[in-house]
């Protein structure tokens, strides 16, 4: 009796709370619309961006003096933002920053608000690539924040000449002779980089219209030639695959004299190469005796608004403000992010930044990343096998067709 009643009491309290919650939800939306109420927003940014975001928030408040705001900054890495948002969209921040590869997943889960506030302004003020990266099915979903989330080549210019860096094969051979390495990330998360070889040779891999599954042209004669090309590179002994963070450490040790990486690692690489720091677009590589320019995924950072926010309108206004020309310049100055805003990108200080210049040159070979989730694991495994020189000597056609089967597998 006692036990049962105690359990019941516990349960009663529990259920009452449940009610209290349930009851609150519906009218809350209407209540917040009343004017002159404090507007509460939370915004998630990468941890290196908190300071500059606080500054932007102050400017935002000054721009709307009639309203009172309470804006909290939380930390969520742009690269993994989706994981946290999708686990429970209702608990996610009102405004969050993320890398453009996550946009599709967010749209599919309806965890991102179609960007209606200032949409035209966004479309005209930002570069075409950035705007396209924020559009799904003709609808603008996010506010472009930076255009420098893609990858390119860093190198030590005391080791390589400007002619050397035109061809990856030349670089690998030269590095191997000196006992040095040219590094690129394969293996875990390597699918992002692996794409550049196949796409460079004209073999596409992209998401289907269903927004979930992929189509992939790699299981073909052309694909085998590309795989052979990668194996040839590995066989030179001067091409080396590891995670970018290990590559950066190896650059500091002096073993890695060139690496494929993005602007987020610019500072440590600058420390490593010091005066010999240089950047360029991705080189060509040799496929069946022909030089092929490596392609890449263009990377953008976007700002999304949570449709479950209590203040979606103000959240959009804030997201728009965070991506204004002024804010993008501020972020370039604080963190070296290449602006997506056309005017900001054209400014002298931005244009003279070697990393951003290299990225701009690479951008003509870059495509917006529209990839379904099933791409990553099979591609990473394919990259791992190739970077090890295909130790099992699996027939390349089998290797590619199994990988493609995984990449194009239906989402179940």
């Amino acid at each position, binding site marked *: *009796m*006692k*036990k*049962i*009643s*105690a*359990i*019941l009491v*516990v*349960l*009663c309290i*529990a*259920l009452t709370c*449940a*009610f209290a919650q*349930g009851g609150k939800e*519906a009218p809350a*939306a209407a209540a917040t*619309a009343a004017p002159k109420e404090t507007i509460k927003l939370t915004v998630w940014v990468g941890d290196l961006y908190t300071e500059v975001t606080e500054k932007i928030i102050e400017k935002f408040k000054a721009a709307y003096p009639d309203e009172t705001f309470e804006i909290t900054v939380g930390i969520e890495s742009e690269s993994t933002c989706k994981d946290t948002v*999708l686990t429970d969209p209702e608990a996610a921040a009102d405004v969050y920053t993320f890398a453009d590869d996550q946009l599709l*997943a967010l749209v*599919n*889960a*309806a*965890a991102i*608000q179609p960007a*209606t506030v200032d949409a035209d302004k966004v479309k005209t003020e930002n570069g075409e690539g950035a705007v396209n990266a924020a559009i799904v099915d003709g609808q603008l979903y996010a506010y472009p924040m930076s255009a420098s989330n893609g990858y390119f080549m860093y190198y030590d210019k005391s080791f390589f000449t400007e002619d050397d860096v035109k061809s990856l094969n030349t670089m690998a051979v030269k590095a191997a002779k000196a006992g040095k390495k040219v590094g690129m990330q394969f*293996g*875990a*998360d390597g699918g992002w980089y692996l794409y550049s070889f196949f796409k460079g040779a004209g073999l596409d891999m992209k998401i289907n219209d269903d927004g*979930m599954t992929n189509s992939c042209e790699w299981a073909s004669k052309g694909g085998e030639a590309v795989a052979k090309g990668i194996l040839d590179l*590995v066989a030179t002994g001067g091409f080396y695959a*590891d*995670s970018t963070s290990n590559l950066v*450490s*190896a650059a500091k040790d002096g073993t890695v004299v060139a690496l494929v990486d993005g602007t987020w690692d610019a500072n440590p690489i600058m420390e490593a190469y010091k005066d010999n720091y240089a950047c360029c677009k991705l080189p060509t590589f040799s496929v069946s005796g022909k030089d092929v320019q490596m392609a890449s995924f263009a990377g953008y950072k976007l700002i999304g608004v949570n*449709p*479950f*926010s209590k*203040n*979606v*309108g*103000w959240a959009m206004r804030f997201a728009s403000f965070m991506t204004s020309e002024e804010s993008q310049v501020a972020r370039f100055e604080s963190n070296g992010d290449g602006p997506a805003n056309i005017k900001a990108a054209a400014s002298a200080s931005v244009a003279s930044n070697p990393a951003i210049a290299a990225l701009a040159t690479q951008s003509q070979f870059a495509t917006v990343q529209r990839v379904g*989730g099933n791409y990553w*694991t099979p591609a*990473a*495994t*394919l990259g*791992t*096998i190739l970077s*090890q020189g295909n*130790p099992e000597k699996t027939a390349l056609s089998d*290797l590619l067709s*199994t990988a493609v*089967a*995984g990449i194009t*597998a*239906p*989402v*179940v």
Partner: protein
Amino acid sequence: MKGKFKQFLGSIGHYFSDFGAAVVHGDWSVKLSLVFMGAGYIRRRKYLYGVFLLAIEVFFILLAATFIAPNLAKFGTLGTVKAEMHFDDVLFTNVWNDFDNSFKILLYSIISLVAILIFALIWISSIKGAYSLQKMDEQGEKPPTIRDDISSAMNEKYYKTLLAVPVGGIVLFTIIPLIVMICIAFTSYDEQHMPPAALFTWVGWANFKQLFTTSLTSTFGYSFGKILRWTLVWAVLATFTNYFGGIMLAMLINNKRTRWKKMWRTCFIIAMAVPQFVTLLLVRNFFADQGIVNTICSNIGLTSLLKKIGLVPAYLNYIPFLTNPNWAKFMIIMINIWVGVPYLLLIATGILMNIPQDLYEAATIDGANSFQQFRKITMPYMLFVTGPYLINSVVQNINNFNVIYLLTNNVFETSDQLLANSHARETDLLVTWLFRLTNEYYNYKMASVIGIMVFVVCTVITLVAFNFVIRGNKEEGMQL
């Protein structure tokens, strides 16, 4: 076992026949209690109980109307109204329709079912209680006062007082979530059907079928078999390496010939005090492809030696400690020894001290050497005493997440393409695979199926072990 099961059924039968008797033989107030709980108590002038029971009933009815009924009504479909919203320019925010959230419906339905069950138990026991009061009245006994009830709660019913809150916690935070997750194995809850924006629904045994099928695009069957095998190998190896390692070390330290016992023990205990995630993440860098250990190994020529004998693939110039499947498995077991032996050292130290010394003295007189003593005295004693612990640790190791997750996450990439196609890796245990499926791919339905399989595996191991290996030690075991 059979007898016990019969006994169990019998006690359930009694439970209901007692209730039937109470209803049939009860007076008007007991019968009224069927509708108005507490009526019987009020008639016997136990007003406090009566009012309390009535209050419970009122609360339950309110609950049923506002929470239980609406949720259970949707339990069959798990919701039909898809979320829709539009941006309202006047309110300057989104307006949502009154949409269904499948997960919440499922969760609240389970809570409702548990609430109904609990209410039914209270209802039955209130009627039985009213009937027993009636019988006492008829026989002229004085019904127990509140003071008597309190005294009984402190004495023969004390277990109820003790268990109430802990069991309540377990029901709410272990049992209900578990039932919910078991249910999810029979639904379509995955990335395409994720609340709040989308709905999921019941799909029967389809997910279980998928776990056992293998085609080029869906390789769950292949991965499950492979990972299950490694999980079992791991659980057995991890348990026994730690177990014997701990005993050996304890014997080494506690031997009479060893000096500075306390210092040695402290060395190992310090290794235990640093949080696992800190040491494991460090050790992972230790053994990275370009890490310190590799630098040292290649400097002293070990790398080229291993290459010569074929333990390291010829195309590598480092030892792939954590990046080659076989090496990684070996390293994981070795590092797990590092992690686990200190615990076993503590346990074994305590137990070794409890072994009656006269056994050893007698053995020494009989001329047994130390190995014979170990085999004939120490091991049997240890095994006898720690048998249940051993089985428990096999189960725990099947569910051992930390070591493998921390050592291989973001480091190890499989080169088995069939595994990759179902997001698994050679080094994965069932639980780490399950975790990746939920955390990175939102495939909750398959994760639940795998979780249920883990349970099945653990149950089989436990049952077999308890029934065949240690019959003697029944107290800790299944007692059906």
